[in-house]
C-alpha cells in the first residue's frame, strides 16, 4: 500500500519533471482560478499561497521520491515484528509530504509549516522503537534542534513581513533592499538552515539522531536535511540574489563547508558504532555540497569567474546531493541490515559477516567505493567536478577536499574490515541473508548508483545543470510571480 502510493508519487514527480525541464517553471496558485485573482490590478502583490516549481525544486523532489520509495520497500521487512506499524507508515508518508512541501512551495511561511511537518514526523519516527533506551534521546535532540531552527526561521519571516508586507519568495526578492534588518534575517535564516542540515559546528545532533533511528528512516532524515539545504540555497540565491554581501556569505559557507568536511571525516574515522560512523560521513559529505555551492555564491557577482568555474562548482555540488542521497542511503541500509541480523551497531562486536551476507557485502562495497570517490563510481564524478573547479578558485580548498576523500576511504576500509572481513565469529554462525524486500530496497539505490556512475554526463546535463541555472537565474523566478499577472 505504502509502496504503491510512493511509486505513484515517483511516477507523478517524473512526469512533472519532464514537463518542467521542457517548458520551464510552473506556477500554481491555491484558492484562485489564476494568478490574476491573486495579483489584483492595482497592487502587484501575491495575496494567496503560490506553489512555484522550477528545476532545482523538482531535482530535490526526485531525490525525495526515489529515496523514500527505497526506504518504504526496505522497511517492509525491517519493521516486521514491531508494534504500531500503521502509525509508522502514516508518519513515513507525512515525512515525505513535509519534504515535498518544502521543496515545492514558493511561500516563506508555507516553507516554515512544512519544515515543521518534516521535523515532527522525523522526530516521532526517530523515537519509534521505544524499547531501546536511546531512541527517545535522539528524538528529543532532533525535535529541539528543529524547533529552535524553525522558530528562528519564523522570526526572520516576521522581519521580512514587517518591512515589505509580503510572504512570497519571488515577490520578496523583487522588492528586497538589503537593509540592516535584512542582514539580520539573512543570518538567522542561513544559520537556522545550517543547523538543520548539520554543518559543523552545529552537527552534533546528527550522529545521535541518525544512529538510533530505524535504518529506513535514517535515509529519509538525510533527505530531509537536504531539503533544508535546498531552503538555504533558495534563501541565498533566490531571495537575496546578487548582493555585495553574498561574497561574505559565500566565504562563510565555504569556511563552514571546509570545517564540516574535515571535522566530520576525522570524527568518523574514530567511531566504532557503524551508524555513527556513517552519520559523521554524512556530515562530511554535506561539506562538499556546501563547498561547491559556496564557491558559486562567492563568485556570483563576477560573471567571468562564474562562467569559467563557478557554474561547474555548483554543478558538482548539486550533483553531489543526489549522489550522496543514493550512496549514503545504500550504506545506511546495509548498516541497518547488519543491525537486523546481528542486533548490534558496535563494530567491535562484528566480524566475518561477508561469509553469510553476500548481497549486503556487495551493496556495501558499491556504496563504500562510491562515497570514497573511487572511479568509476558516481562519487568520483561529482567530486572531480568539485575538485577541478574549486582548485581554480583556491587550491588549498581542493587539497583539503582530497584529504577528506582519502580519510573517507580509510574509515570505510576500517568498517568494512571489522564488519565483513576476518574469520567467521562463533556468535554469528546462524546469521542468514536479510529478507528479500530489504535487498530490493537496497537494490533500488544500488541500481541508481550504477546508472549514475555510467552516465554522469547525462545526469549533469539533464538534472544538475538546469538546477544550477535555476538557482543562478533569479530573474526568472521573480518573473514567474510578478510578471505572470
Amino acid at each position, binding site marked *: 500500500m505504502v509502496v504503491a502510493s510512493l511509486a505513484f508519487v515517483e511516477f507523478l514527480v517524473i512526469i512533472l519533471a519532464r514537463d518542467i525541464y521542457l517548458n520551464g517553471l510552473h506556477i500554481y496558485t491555491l484558492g484562485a482560478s489564476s494568478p490574476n485573482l491573486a495579483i489584483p490590478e492595482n497592487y502587484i502583490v501575491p495575496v494567496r499561497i503560490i506553489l512555484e516549481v522550477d528545476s532545482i525544486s523538482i531535482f530535490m523532489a526526485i531525490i525525495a521520491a526515489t529515496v523514500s520509495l527505497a526506504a518504504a520497500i526496505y522497511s517492509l521487512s525491517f519493521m516486521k515484528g514491531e508494534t504500531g506499524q500503521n502509525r509508522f507508515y502514516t508518519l513515513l508518508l507525512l515525512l515525505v509530504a513535509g519534504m515535498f512541501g518544502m521543496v515545492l512551495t514558493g511561500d516563506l511561511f508555507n516553507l516554515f509549516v512544512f519544515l515543521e511537518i518534516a521535523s515532527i514526523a522525523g522526530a516521532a519516527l526517530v523515537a519509534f522503537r521505544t524499547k531501546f533506551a536511546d531512541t527517545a534521546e535522539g528524538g528529543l535532540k532532533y525535535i529541539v534542534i528543529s524547533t529552535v531552527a524553525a522558530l528562528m526561521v519564523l522570526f526572520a519571516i516576521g522581519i521580512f513581513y514587517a518591512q515589505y508586507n509580503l510572504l512570497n519568495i519571488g515577490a520578496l526578492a523583487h522588492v528586497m533592499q538589503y537593509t540592516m534588518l535584512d542582514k539580520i534575517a*539573512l543570518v538567522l535564516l542561513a544559520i537556522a538552515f545550517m543547523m538543520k542540515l548539520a554543518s559543523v559546528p552545529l552537527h552534533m545532533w546528527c550522529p545521535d539522531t541518525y544512529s538510533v533511528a530505524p535504518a529506513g528512516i535514517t535515509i529519509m532524515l538525510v533527505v530531509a536535511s537536504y531539503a533544508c539545504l535546498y531552503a538555504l540555497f533558495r534563501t541565498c540565491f533566490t531571495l537575496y540574489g546578487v548582493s555585495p554581501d553574498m561574497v561574505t556569505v559565500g566565504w562563510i559557507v565555504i569556511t563552514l563547508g571546509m570545517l564540516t568536511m574535515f571535522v566530520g571525516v*576525522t570524527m568518523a574515522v574514530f567511531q566504532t558504532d557503524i551508524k555513527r560512523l556513517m552519520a559523521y560521513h554524512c556530515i562530511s559529505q554535506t561539506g562538499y555540497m556546501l563547498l561547491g555551492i559556496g564557491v558559486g555564491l562567492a563568485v556570483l557577482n563576477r560573471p567571468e569567474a562564474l562562467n569559467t568555474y563557478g557554474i561547474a562548482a555548483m554543478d558538482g555540488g548539486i550533483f553531489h546531493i543526489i549522489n550522496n542521497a543514493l550512496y549514503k542511503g545504500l550504506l545506511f541500509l546495509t548498516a541497518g541490515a547488519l543491525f537486523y541480523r546481528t542486533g548490534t551497531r558496535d563494530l567491535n562486536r562484528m566480524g566475518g559477516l561477508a561469509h553469510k551476507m553476500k548481497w549486503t557485502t556487495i551493496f556495501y562495497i558499491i556504496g563504500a567505493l562510491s562515497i570514497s570517490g573511487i572511479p568509476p563510481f558516481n562519487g568520483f564524478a561529482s567530486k572531480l567536478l568539485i575538485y577541478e573547479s574549486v582548485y581554480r578558485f583556491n587550491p588549498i580548498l581542493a587539497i583539503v577536499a582530497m584529504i577528506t576523500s582519502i580519510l573517507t576511504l580509510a574509515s570505510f576500509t576500517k568498517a568494512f574490515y571489522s564488519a565483513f572481513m576476518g574469520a*567467521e565469529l562463533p556468535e554469528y554462525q546462524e546469521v542468514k541473508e536479510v529478507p528479500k524486500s530489504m535487498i530490493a530496497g537496497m537494490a533500488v539505490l544500488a541500481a541508481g548508483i550504477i546508472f549514475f556512475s555510467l552516465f554522469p*554526463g547525462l545526469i549533469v546535463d539533464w538534472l544538475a545543470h538546469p538546477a544550477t541555472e535555476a538557482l543562478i537565474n533569479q530573474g526568472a523566478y521573480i518573473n514567474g510571480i510578478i510578471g505572470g499577472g
Partner: protein
Amino acid sequence: MSILGLSYSPWSPIFWLLASVVVMIMAYFFRRRGQKKYKKDTEQTKIFLCGEEVPEAKQRHIRAHNVYWGFFETMKEYYDANIKAHTGIINDYIIWFLVLIAISAIILFIVGIV
C-alpha cells in the same frame, strides 16, 4: 552522453571500464603463468603463525577500535579536543548555534561597514 565535460579533462566511466577490462585481461595472463601446484584444502592454504597454534577466530579478529591506532595516537591532541567538544548535552548544541549566529552576524556587519 556518458562523458562529463570538465575544464581540464573529460571523464568517462565507459572508457575507464574499458581500460580496466584490458588491465584485468593482462592480469589474467600474468596469473596463468604462475605455478600450477596450488591446491585447496591442503596444507598450502592453512594459516602459518611461526609454527604456533593458530588462535580461535574470536581472538584472531582485529577489533574496530584497534584499527588505525597509530593515526589516533599521532593526532591525540586534536581528538581529545574534539571529543571534549562533542559533549552530547543538548544545551551545548544550542550554545553552538548561538555562537555561530553571533560570529557570522558580526562578520557580516563588519564587512558591510568596511
